């Protein structure tokens, strides 16, 4: 029988740690709980878990530092939990090497879904995933990552990117795209151009290479150049 994935929970609020622990066990994960940063870090080194759920405000060693130190030696997914939710905190959290970010009060269903998604990402044998170049799309979790960076996409943006990513190298004309992604509207709008613009912006925020290219007079194509 396959080994159950091991999740390390580092959370100083015992009541929160407790129900996360219970929920993850109910989802058939093995869990380890620690209540401060130093213990959390030594547990990580000792047990080498598959995923870390990390609170940001921890005694002794704070969550950002724990994430940074884990990231030095390992690619294990880290999901940060925090009571702060300003943009700066989010950016700092993700910069420190965390893969994802949930703000308290969070819904447990969302945490479980993110845990599933990140475990799948580490283990590509699990289906429901499309990879093109450095783009990874998790179709069940409706999430996209470029070079490990999570990209926030709206529903339509995700659908459009999925269409391209499932057919790399195929040139789509605007009519085809509209029919597939916006079946509820009859043609004649510039919706495709607008959304390709949105996708390019979101996929290239770090100055990455262009993935979706314009084919003059025809439409668009996703390919690596």
């Amino acid at each position, binding site marked *: 029988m396959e080994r159950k994935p091991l999740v390390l929970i580092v959370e100083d609020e015992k009541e929160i740690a407790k129900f996360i622990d219970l929920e993850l066990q109910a989802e058939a994960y093995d869990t380890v709980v620690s209540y401060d940063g130093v213990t959390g870090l030594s547990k990580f080194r000792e047990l080498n878990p598959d995923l870390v759920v990390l609170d940001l405000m921890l005694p002794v060693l704070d969550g950002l530092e724990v994430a940074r130190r884990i990231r030095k030696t390992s690619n294990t997914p880290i999901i940060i939990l925090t009571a702060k939710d300003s943009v700066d905190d989010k950016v700092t959290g993700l910069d420190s090497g965390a893969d994802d970010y949930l703000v308290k009060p969070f819904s*447990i269903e969302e945490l479980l879904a993110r845990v599933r998604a990140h475990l799948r990402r580490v283990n590509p044998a699990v289906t429901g995933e499309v990879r093109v170049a450095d783009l990874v799309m998790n179709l069940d979790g409706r999430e996209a990552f470029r070079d490990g960076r999570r990209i926030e996409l709206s529903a339509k943006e995700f659908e459009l990117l999925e269409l391209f990513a499932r057919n790399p190298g195929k040139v789509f004309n605007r009519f085809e795209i509209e029919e597939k992604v916006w079946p509820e509207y009859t043609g004649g*709008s510039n919706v495709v151009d607008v959304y390709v613009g949105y996708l390019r912006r979101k996929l290239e925020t770090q100055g990455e290479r262009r993935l979706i290219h314009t084919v003059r007079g025809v439409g668009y194509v996703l390919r690596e150049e």
Partner: protein
Amino acid sequence: MWDTSCAKSDGAPVTLRLRLTLFYGAFFALVVSFVAVSVYLLTERSLTASLEERARQALSDLSSGAVLEGLRKLPGDAYYEILIVGQGDQVPSDASAVRAGVPYVEPSRFRPNPTDESLVAQLSDAQLTELLDTGSMAAGVTLPSGEHLRVLGDVGRLSFPAQEIALSAAVFVGVPATNVAATVEQLAQDLGLTVVAAFVVFAIGVFLLSRQVLRPLERVTQAAGRVTGRDLAQRVPVPKSRDEIYELAVTLNHMLDRLEESFETQRRFTADASHELRTPVTAIAGHANYLVRRTRPSAEQVDSLTVIRREAERMGKLVADLLELARADAGFAIDTAPMNLVEVLEAVHMEIAPVAGGVEIAVDTPGPVVEVEGDAARLKQVALNLVQNAVNAGARHVRLSVEREREGVRLEVLDDGPGIPDTAIPHLFDRFYRVDGARSGRGNGSGLGLAIVKWIVQQHGGRVEVTSRHGEGTVFTVLLPGVGARLDPARTGSVDDGSPRPSRPKLPGV
């Protein structure tokens, strides 16, 4: 939030300026008029005196008998008249005797009068009687030719040593006063004009200078006007000179320091309290959730746990809303990018339709794309809050409609609920405000939804308005700038007072 509209009053300094100008001007006019009148009177008196002095000298020469001597001293334009009224020291007592006196004509006639007019003919009996009684007189006389004279009279003796006779005579000398009168009149005119001109120049000067004086005050007012609840960091400029305005600015700044401090304390308290509440709320909801989902509670326990979970979630929402507003108070700006409002509305529809309890929700758009410059998550919150409000109020149909307009994008949320009373409309966007009746009740809103809507819309450079008719429904209108455009900043953030519009709100499904 603070109302900054009344803080800006350009009128006050100008009024003070006008008052200063009028006050100083009036005082100045009073002083200058006094000086002018004094100059006038002094000049008139001194001119008249010098005129009389010359005449009196000649008169005393004439009446002392040195006729030729006297005539020589007489100015060329002066008149004289000598009437012999008696022998020796005889002096008549009757004025008519003077008139009947024999004119003494100087034999050589080397000194004629300028004209042949008689002085005595112009004098009244009373004046002549005064002459006879007191031995002298002085009067102003106008000749038939129109010439003004100052006439002095004397009774004296003419002695002619050669003939050994002495005669008593009434001697008159008239010096032209026309020059003096004209000079004095000219002086009065000149002085009057000078006074008026000085007043005007002074008033203009005061008006201009007072602006100089009041400018620091104006700067203080302007700076104070820029201080708002959002931006308490602004300070009033403190002038270098340690004057009254310095005192005012320092006092104002002290006040602002204290205000900013207490505002910041309050904001931080809200933020800290919200943060601190998040952890227990998360734990409560999480454990209740766990019990419902993962254990086998009885039906009664499920009911009870559901209440715990729902209330914890509501509290979580309230905490999130409070934090959002604490951020708004801290002057937090939101990031915007071009985005499709239609997709946001569709997402709101998908999210809320299953839990709307049979309320029909429709989305009405002109096509698949209506772009705005915005923050998708926050605009979704705007639409969600407005739709949730309508559902909570008891609407049966809610329609979300979006339209492109010349100046941007118009998003309307129309419902056929009971409507909002007119008295409630001005407070609708206040924090924790709840409309009495249908909208309060058990509603699961935090009372912060519309305050957040207003803040988000303002941060987008848009505005939100509400129109409602009792028993017919309510329309919330959100106007957002289109891509690459901002609404007229002067109107940004205004909340419509909800006064009835001529057109009826279009209600869905009615």
